[in-house]
């Protein structure tokens, strides 16, 4: 994985995790799988960054954790969104969309901006 991709991931990992959990409680491994599959194998979350991010979010009170059994009856730690986490997700999605729109406008521009009016 190249560095450009890594930087990109770090900035948005939190919002991806929050979004992944909107469908219900998941354990860490399931979260990586969900993000990978949902992005059509484009985004790959590294374990070394995923878990610290999960713990940080839990510590901030955006997630809450509970031990449960996985599909093959192993004990695993499941994360779920707290109401605060849900609010945070909404905020971040909005910010992210505004950011993406702005970037898209610049990148997709076909002509230079009009000269600024001298007020």
């Amino acid at each position, binding site marked *: 994985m190249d560095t450009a991709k890594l930087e990109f991931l770090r900035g948005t990992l939190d919002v991806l995790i929050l979004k992944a959990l909107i469908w*219900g*409680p998941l*354990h*860490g*491994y399931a979260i990586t799988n969900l993000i990978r599959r949902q992005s059509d194998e484009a985004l790959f979350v*590294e*374990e*070394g960054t995923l*878990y*610290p991010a999960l*713990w*940080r979010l*839990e*510590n901030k009170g955006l997630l809450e954790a*509970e*031990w*449960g*059994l*996985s599909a*093959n*009856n*192993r*004990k*695993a*730690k*499941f994360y779920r969104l707290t109401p605060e986490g849900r609010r945070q997700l909404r905020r971040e999605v909005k910010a992210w969309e505004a950011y993406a729109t702005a970037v898209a406008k610049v990148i997709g521009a076909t002509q230079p901006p009009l000269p600024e009016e001298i007020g």
Partner: protein
Amino acid sequence: MKPIPLWRRYSRLFGADPAADVKDELRFHLEAKIDDLVSQGWRPEAARQEAGRQFGDLRTVQEIGVSIGEKMERRKRLKDYWSDSLQDVRYAFRTLGRDAGFAAVSIVILALAIGANIAVFSVVNTLLLRPLPFPDSHQLVWIAPPPTACGLSCATYSADAYEEFRAQSRAYQDVTGYEAFTTPDNLRLTGLGEPEPATGVEVIGNFFQVLGVQPAMGRLFAPDEVRGGPQVALLSNAYWRRQFNADPAIVGKAIELNGAPVTVVGVLPASFDFGAVFSPGAKVDLFTPLDLDRERNWGNIVTLLGRLKPGVTVAHALDDANRVAPNMYFNVKYPESLGRYKGDLIPVPLKDYVIGKLRRSLIALWSAVGAILLIAGVNLSNLLLARAATRAKEFAVRGALGASRGRTVRQLLTESLVLSGAGAALGLGLAFIVIAWLAHQRSLALPLLSALRIDSQALGWTVLIAVFTTVLFGLVPGLRIAGGNLQEVLKDSGRGAGLGRRHERVRAVLVVSEVALACALLVSAGLLLRSFLKVLDVDLGFQPDRAASIKVEYDDSAPSDHASAAKRAAIFHQILDRVSALPGVEAAGMADYLPLGPNRNWDTPVPQGKTFAPGELPDPLVYVITPGFIRAMGIRLHGRDFTWADVPHSEKVVLINASAARVYWPGEDAVGKVLMRGEEADLVVGVVDDIHEETVEGPVGSQIYYPVTQQGPNGAQLVIRTSLPPATLAASVLHALREINPKQPAAEFRPIQTIVDRAYSPRRFFMLLVAAFAGLGLLLAALGIYGVISYSVSQKTQEIGVRMALGASAGRVQREVILNTLRLAVAGIVLGTTASVVSARLIASLLFATSPWDVTTYAGMVLSLVAVALISGYIPAQRASCIDPMAALRSQ
């Protein structure tokens, strides 16, 4: 996600473990990955390696996880603790509110004890613990000879001695001093309407620099002002505010003192209170530089104090002084005065000089309030226990519902914290009132009182006391309850018999210790009270009641000593005639110094025709008086008083006191004998009783009286003896003085009794405080006894009922309850007598003419305690004898 079945929940049986959680979580991740890889066709071994490779640095991630996990765990615990505590506090308020009487009594008890402790701590802190209010005050030393019977003149030094000492000493940064013979109202502020009395002290020019006092306005004295330069003065802050309405432009203005202009060069800061440090209870209005050249021939006039060089100890300074002393002259004009101060220059830390004998009193006082706190705490413990006993069921139910032992103790501790917190808050309020009142007690001759305040240290002390009482006295009942057997309590449907008995024993122990502490307090207070009464009984040598004094201004300036004496005699004679004629005045006279104030001595008279070894003869204190003074003061006289016919050219006459007569002519009548002062012969015309000149309690030395008509007095204090209350004469006496001398200021008309009261005041102060504490202790002990007995009566209602049904008489039941009470009291008294012996030893040095084993005091203590015990046992006994057997038996 499926919930974990019960049998797999064993892993966190011993509490949370963040490290294991992280490990488990990461292990699950790896295993899931391996499973996936294997299902994609990897060999298990290769899959394991691939999963590890993909994960990367497992250890670092684990460390991050553990640290975050621990943080969360800590926060969670804290949150739980807080919410539990809040719950406890809410619950405590609810239960205490339900039992308002109990809460009020405990809070008042605690408030009294804590308030007393804070107030006394503030006093102790100001006087004992805090350094003096000067920068680097540990460097300041007071230099004086060992105490002797010849008063202030033997505690001071001559101008020459000061200069030699300052020049030759190597231990000091600088040495300074002040004129020690200042009397209150020694100056007149003139030029502003009626002359106003003022008190000024002459200080050596570098006085404030040595103390490290910076002026609030203006400047200190400059070197050229010190030696006969322009007349300048520094004002004390209080005087500047009072007399000059805090005039911001006062510096540089001229004021008139005794009719001469004096320039104000500065105002001292409010934090500097000369009287508070050097002369307790006195107010000093202004300071002028002392002209040493003018004073050179006046003998011992200055006190010495110095600032040690950094690192020099008092012991070094003493060695240094012993080295310098042999080279010092009393007066350089007289070579034979070389070495007169040998052994007479002993530096002591200024703080020790200021606090001196008070140290022990303060420590005794501190111990007394400590005892009060203990008694109050024991009382609280007792009350809590009684309550806890009635709440045993409540706690048993809580325990059965899963409250842990620790949780129950915490609940009880919270309750006592709420109580002692409220007590501390109320006590702090009380202490504020007491301290504010004390700080303004000018009539109390204690040093540094004006610096008294409740500061952060005192507040810290409050918190400390509150926590201490809470933990100590909340813990006993807490552990008692929590240690109880739940089933036993729950099963026991009636009033808990087993638990009750055990409680009773603990409570009995508490009450006995309470009584013992009260014993020690009572004995201490009793001993101090008896000492105080003994001091009041001391024969002062004069009659302070119905006498009053006022400082008189006069002008006896004349070209020669004889002319001046004649002029003075005429003025004094006129004043005394006029004042004696006032209605109600029985006798009037004047003296330059009054007893129990400043004093001085001149030289060493020798009885004519006798020889004494050097040092054997005393330096008597000198009083220069008018005819009539002896009668006005109520001093007993053998021989004759001075008369106006004793004039400069007639035979020189003196009066001496009985102590002096015993030294000069032991076993003989001194009247008619002659004392020689060098070439001058003085005929002793009378012998007067010893008067207490410095302290009421100290021994009396030799005294000698000269007539104003033959010797120069140092000012004049008019003393009148009257058949009316002295205060009623104030106006007419002042009016008479003004008629003769319009410049007479409105000086204070002081009953002599107030001078004596001031001398008593420290002892009275300590005695009253300890007595108040003893009274409080007694009251608390009574409460404690009452509590225990009345509780045990209510516990035994059934038993008593059965016995009465079986024929026991009411009288017998009553007798038994009272006997129980007495048993407690006697145990307390026996223990307390031992404690009293210890405390009596502690205060032995504070006693005056009273033995620490004073039988009357101990007997009084025993009697009062037994009486109090009987009273507090009688009420429950009365109740016990009124129990209706049928009602008691049916109550179950």
